[in-house]
């Protein structure tokens, strides 16, 4: 592109300004505020419009208005340019009204053939230059003191290089294409992180349907399980019924046998009972006939026996007593006879005794010592003994009891002892009293005694008889008392016995006779008791048998499940149980089966039937396979849709990945070319000091510094060098962008402000090379630069003075 005419109707400080630049290097000079920068802005505004959109740097109203003519003239302009192919165009813009018209070389309005931007109008410049405004600003234009670019600017340049296309007015961009694909992926398919996109919705619905399907399949499985269980339960029921039948059969056989056994047992019991009852009747008759014993108890019988034995003893004692009395009476009679015969002796002795007594009294005083020696046994001894005998005899009276033989004997012994002691004491005295033997002897002789011995023997005989007579009398009296007592006792006992034996036989006083009676009574009683015991025993056995019979009948009733009260009924039941057969069932080798087992089996059968019923009920409501098919249908469709979405996703991702890969590759290629061109340019400007510039993918620039082995970021260099680096980059970028495409005019506004003289000259030489095929607008206010330019371009220099 070469600008042929700049007709500024009104723009900033310019009004009605006509400039016809040359196709090569145009040096625009003027002092400060002469409008050099405004001229560049006018060209850009004519190409790309002033804009009003948010994205445009010129968007702010203040920016647009800042170019409004100061003198209030028309805010418009005309730009005429020729493309490399020779086609010429004219652009009329009315900035005030935002209107733009493009005419071709035949003056035809071709505005509508260009894409229209809402902000900037027809996008002819993008199409003709193949550059967006942004790229244009970062490559074809250097504003005053703004040669250096931020990394974004460099990145835009790099992207432009990658996107190199001049096919249209679209602002082509790798990043935009990638963004578009990302958006398409997100909106039309969905990413792994999205939740509401088509694939997400399909997957969510699929998940839901899969859940429903799983539930339905589970239902179907449960249905099949129910069939499986039904089959098992039916087999189990069959087994149980078979088992039940076997158990029942075995049980019935055992029942029948048992009933038969019970019937037999019952019959035997009945027979036994009959016999026992007959025996009992017989015994009871016997017992009735010996009624005398009916009220007789064993105790009473024992008392009677004791009474009888006492009676017999008393009777024996009485006989002894009678004999004793008779003997004592005989003895007493003998003693009386002897006493009669000894009466003379007695008299003599009495006299002698008196004599002796007298003598004794006389001698008492003289023979006190002898008397004392003669008193060996105290007097109280016989007295006490006699008192004891009397007390013993009197004791029964006080105790109100009958005199008993031991007591009687004790009394007798005590009395005898008292007498003997008394006698012994008297003998001693006599012995002591005999002292004057001569007188005594003489007196003895006087009395007719032969001597003392004779006297003593006769006296002793007399004393013995007297003593015997006295003793005999006492004993006789005692015996008689005893006899009376015994008689009385015997009568009382006899009476008692007689009362007991009343009705059995006539009791006799004769023990011999009584003995017979008693023997008979005892035997009768014993027989009675035996019969009574046997009768009781029989009754108990009858009762036990009857209880047993009841139990048998109860068991039989339970077994036959009906009331059975007779053996005949039991027989009948047993017969019915065996089906009329009277033969017992063979239960050999089979254990008895309890009804509990059968009931358990029946319970199991019932439970099994309930389960089968329940299962059949469940199986009535089979899960709908149609519903499942519907779900399956939707699942299939969604799966297909999911597959398609996934394919679409894979397509988008593939497009994105390949685009990025190709873009990176291209970028790398262009970066190498860019680096090469940049390095050549910086080398020219710096006279070979810097020979290499590198660009990284982010657009950062690095310089190979001779003093340093490492690449140095341009930001660390002097501001002059930085400007030179970026000038090199812009020129290189333009050169690359233009390859086979439209040549871009270059607008440089005071680019060498920070250059030294030498590098300014070299930079001009570089521009000379660059402007060989390119229109260049170089703005400067510095006279030295004008001189240098004139030096280099000579007559070819088109000087435009503002």
């Amino acid at each position, binding site marked *: 592109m070469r600008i042929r005419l700049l007709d500024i109707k009104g723009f900033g400080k310019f009004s009605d300004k006509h400039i016809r630049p040359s196709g090569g290097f145009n040096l625009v000079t003027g002092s400060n505020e002469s409008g050099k920068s405004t001229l560049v802005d006018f060209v850009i505004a004519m190409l790309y419009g002033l804009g009003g959109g948010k994205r445009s740097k010129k968007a702010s109203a203040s920016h647009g208005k800042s170019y409004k003519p100061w003198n209030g003239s028309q805010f418009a302009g005309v730009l005429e340019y020729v493309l490399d192919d020779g086609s010429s165009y004219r652009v009329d813009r009315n900035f005030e009204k935002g209107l733009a018209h493009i005419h071709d070389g035949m003056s035809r309005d071709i505005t509508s053939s260009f894409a229209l931007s809402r902000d900037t109008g027809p996008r002819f410049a993008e199409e003709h230059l193949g550059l967006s405004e942004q790229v244009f600003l970062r490559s074809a234009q250097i504003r005053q003191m703004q040669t250096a670019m931020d990394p974004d600017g460099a990145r835009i340049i790099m992207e432009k290089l990658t996107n190199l296309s001049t096919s249209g007015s679209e602002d082509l961009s790798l990043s935009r294409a990638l963004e578009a694909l990302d958006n398409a992926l997100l909106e039309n398919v969905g990413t792994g992180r999205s939740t509401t996109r088509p694939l997400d919705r399909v997957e969510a619905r699929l998940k839901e349907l899969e859940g429903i399907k799983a539930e339905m399949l589970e239902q179907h*499985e449960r249905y099949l399980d129910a069939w*499986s269980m039904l089959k098992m339960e039916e087999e189990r029921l069959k087994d149980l019924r078979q088992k039940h039948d076997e158990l029942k059969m075995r049980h019935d056989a055992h029942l029948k046998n048992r009933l038969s056994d019970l019937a037999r047992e019952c019959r035997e019991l009945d027979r036994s009972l009959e016999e026992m009852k007959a025996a009992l009747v017989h015994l009871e008759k016997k017992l009735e006939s010996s009624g005398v014993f009916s009220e007789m108890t064993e105790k009473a019988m024992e008392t009677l026996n004791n009474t009888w034995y006492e009676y017999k003893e008393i009777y024996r004692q009485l006989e002894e007593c009678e004999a004793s009395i008779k003997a004592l009476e005989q003895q007493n009679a003998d003693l009386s006879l002897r006493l009669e015969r000894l009466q003379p002796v007695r008299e003599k002795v009495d006299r002698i005794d008196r004599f002796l007594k007298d003598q004794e009294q006389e001698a008492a005083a003289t023979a006190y010592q002898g008397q004392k020696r003669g008193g060996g046994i105290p007097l109280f001894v016989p007295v006490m003994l006699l008192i004891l005998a009397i007390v013993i005899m009197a004791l029964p009276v006080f105790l109100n009891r009958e005199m008993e033989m031991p007591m009687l004997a004790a009394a007798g012994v005590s009395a005898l002892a008292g007498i003997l002691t008394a006698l012994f004491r008297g003998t001693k005295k006599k012995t002591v009293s005999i002292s004057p033997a001569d007188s005594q002897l003489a007196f003895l002789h006087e009395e007719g005694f032969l001597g003392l011995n004779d006297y003593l023997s006769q006296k002793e005989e007399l004393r013995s008889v007297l003593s015997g007579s006295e003793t005999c009398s006492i004993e006789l009296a005692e015996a008689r008392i005893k006899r009376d007592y015994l008689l009385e006792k015997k009568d009382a006992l006899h009476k008692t016995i007689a009362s007991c034996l009343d009705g059995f036989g006539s009791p006799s006083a004769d023990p011999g006779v009584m003995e017979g009676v008693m023997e008979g009574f005892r035997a009768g009683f014993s027989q009675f008791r035996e019969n009574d015991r046997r009768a009781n025993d029989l009754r108990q056995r009858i009762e036990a048998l009857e209880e047993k019979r009841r139990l048998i009948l109860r068991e039989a009733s339970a077994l036959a499940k009906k009331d059975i009260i007779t053996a005949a009924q039991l027989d009948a039941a047993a017969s019915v149980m065996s089906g009329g057969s009277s033969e017992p069932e063979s239960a050999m080798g089979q254990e008895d089966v309890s009804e509990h087992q059968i009931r358990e089996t029946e319970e199991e059968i019932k439970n099994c039937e309930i389960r089968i019923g329940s299962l059949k009920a469940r199986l009535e409501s089979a899960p709908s396979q149609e519903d499942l098919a519907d779900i399956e*249908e939707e699942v299939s469709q969604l799966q297909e849709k999911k597959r398609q979405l996934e394919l679409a996703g894979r*397509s988008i991702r593939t497009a994105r990945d390949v685009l990025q890969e*190709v873009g990176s590759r291209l970028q790398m290629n262009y970066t190498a070319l860019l680096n090469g061109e940049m390095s050549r340019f910086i080398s020219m400007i710096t006279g070979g000091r810097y020979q290499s510039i590198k660009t990284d993918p982010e657009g950062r620039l690095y310089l190979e510094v001779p003093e340093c082995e490492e690449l140095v970021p341009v930001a660390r260099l002097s501001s002059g060098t930085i400007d030179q680096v970026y000038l090199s980059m812009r020129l290189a970028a333009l050169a690359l962008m233009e390859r086979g495409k439209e040549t871009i005019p270059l607008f440089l506004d005071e680019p060498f402000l920070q250059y030294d003289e030498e590098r300014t000259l070299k930079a001009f030489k570089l521009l000379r090379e660059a402007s060989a095929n390119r229109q260049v607008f170089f703005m400067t206010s510095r006279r030295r630069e004008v001189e240098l330019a004139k030096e280099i371009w000579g007559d070819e220099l088109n000087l435009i003075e503002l």
Partner: protein
Amino acid sequence: MATDRIRFLHCADIHLDRPFGGRGLKDYSEMRRTDVWKTFESIIRLAEDELVDFILVCGDLYEHDYASRATIQRVGSLFGRLTIPVVVLPGNHDPYVANSWYKTWNWPDNVVILDNEKPTVRLDALNTFIHGEGFSAFRQDTPDLSTVTRPFSDCFNIFMLHGTLDMNFSNRPFNPVSSGELADLGYDYYALGHFHNLKTDFKLKNAANPGSPEPLGFDETGDHGVLLVTLERDEHGKKALDIREINLAQKRYVLLNLDMAAVSSQEEACARLGELLCSLDLGRDLPRVILKGRTPLAVDCEALKKPWMENYPWLQILDETRDCYDYGAISREENLKGAFTREMLQRLKDCEEKGDEEQAMILSAALDLGIEALEKGRIDARFDGGLFKGSDRERRLI
């Protein structure tokens, strides 16, 4: 005297009660399920007509997940009608699991179900020994052939297998075995099942897979049916095998491609479709027409098939056409678009050489999308169930 000839039907993969979903057409699904039943009944009739000695069902008789009691009752009734043995091998769709109908149903006495506990049956009257390797679970690994009963020299020995023979095309094949392994067993005939298409050209010459008697999808095109197998033994004891294919299918899936690249209008497309369809068997063939090629034409598939719906009510048309960018010209551009196009076309070419159709389809769509993104900076392409198609085509609809 021992039987020296047996004739039997070998079928597999009947898939009774298969839902046949995916097209959103209830009537279609219902019709196809009925077709499967009709074919099954044809098998029973064939057995009666041909007076075969027995029937072998090599797996997937029914669909465990879908088969109802009524289905099983009907199957049992049909089998029970026969007076010959029916030997059934459970497959991966009807495995011999705990609640399998095979276990729970009271099958007729002539039905023999082989499972891993009772994998063999000897048909004494026919002098035939049969061993089956079926499924007792929905998935199971390679069968253990070391436990297979050795064949009996005086019998016709048949080995039933529901699995893949020399066809390990998936990561987890079903009961995979090789011809060599089966050959070592020394059986007279290997009755296979699981693969839905007829295959009799195994390395193992005496093995055959009848496929589904009724085709179940568009990946099962062509004729379908059962095998009528005859095994004979001559006087020297040498056995001979004869396998006859008998077509019983009610329907036939037919895949047709319609190249739209040379088609300039909907009417022309309709006419070209008619030419394709006219060779089909009305009432039997189930056609699926795939529109291929690059075209600026946005074809209305529903409108396209409308005239043919009377004869082909289940006609399916899939639009797999792509936008018609001039990729030859674009690829010559020295810019990102050109570089991208060159790269994609190269990849497409590689893919097509490898025969990876799916990846080719993805690359083709990716190329369209990438160019659109580069040219417009946005994607206006619509997505309507298939891959992206340019929205411009709507406007260019003729």
